[in-house]
């Protein structure tokens, strides 16, 4: 069974929301999304993250020390997470 995009978005919001304004590296995010079946591939994750970047829901940076790509929710992304948690 493959993870559908809406489920993946919900998982992503649930993973990034508790981080608040702090950056979460992509590896940890990928591990978190694969804690439960069905798993998520890195490509599927990147597709959703890029789509959200275009909509300004998430922001990313490359950490200079670790060299990891890190993601976090923007203000509009946090509002989206709030709305989705209220809807649930």
């Amino acid at each position, binding site marked *: 069974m493959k993870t559908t995009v809406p489920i993946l978005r919900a998982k992503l919001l*649930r*993973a990034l929301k*508790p*981080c*608040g304004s*702090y*950056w*979460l*590296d992509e590896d*940890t995010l990928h591990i*978190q999304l694969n*804690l*439960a*079946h069905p798993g998520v591939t890195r490509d599927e994750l990147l597709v959703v993250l890029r789509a959200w970047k275009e909509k300004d829901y998430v922001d990313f940076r490359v950490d200079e020390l670790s060299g990891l790509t890190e993601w976090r929710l923007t203000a509009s992304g946090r509002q989206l997470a709030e709305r989705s948690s209220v809807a649930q």
Partner: protein
Amino acid sequence: MTKRKDHTPWSRRDAALRTPLSAGEAPVAEASAAGASRCRKPRSATKRPPKPAASATPEDRSESEPPVVARRVAKRRDTIAPYKRSSSSGVSVAGSSVTLAEDATNGIDTPRPSGPPLLLEGTPAGEAPAAVTPAKLATIDDLRALDEETRGHIADFVISGAPIPTLRRMLEAEQGLRFTEDAPVVEFYQEEARRRWQNTFDTASADADAMINVLRHSDLDFSEVLLKALGQQAFRMITQRELNTKQVEKFTRLLLQARGQDVSRTRAKEALALQREKMERQFQSDLEKALNALADEIKAHPEVRESFVFFRAKLKEAMRAKAKIKKMPAQTPPLLEETPGA
């Protein structure tokens, strides 16, 4: 009289054995043997006991017809074998155990008097007895009802890479929870992992925010960039379990202490520089006063003019040398040690 061997083919004998044994029927082995050796007199007519009556019980039949019953029991044993068979000739079916003693004479499994019979009368071969009730199994709710420490222990056990069957055995041995499938354990682990993840990140975010707020509202002046970097690093370390709440508090206290010492050291340096500047200014004013008085004296006594010119040249050299020393950063200015008249 010499004994003749029975040359009946095994296929025919087996077919005869598979026919149902009804009450009053002649023994199948006997019948097949009679068909095979038509020329000789049947042994049963001379040696065998008389045929059992139609009302004979199954126990009586088993005593009187050992070869047939041995085949049938062996066949039933084969059908039961897939359920479970222990190494010590004990058979357990879905929670109930029945021990069998091997009969050395004819190979018949005869049940011990202490245990229940292996097969219930009327149970069709190949089916588990209906009278056996399965033992109570644990559910995922039993796992959810465990205390926090045990749940964390289970999650750590799975995270460490232990396979689920091993975890099931551990749960059965330590907690008395028996699972026949991996699915409930896996589902519980996923729930637990999500819950722990949420808790970890909530805690990390809250701790890092608290640390930043303590630093921001302290008397010491931290730049906002430094605070954000510190918060991010604390968040990362807490989520990776390299730092816990107590260590964050200690880290914050040490940081404040170091920063406070740094600020007090800076303030002491600034005060010393101010004091030095004030003393220089005072020294210059004293020097100017002395030079003016000396100029007045020279006007009154023209014979010491030559000495005065020589003294002024030496003073200029000394001032230039002092200015050079001031510009050198590594050396401390020896202004405080110098006397005004030097």
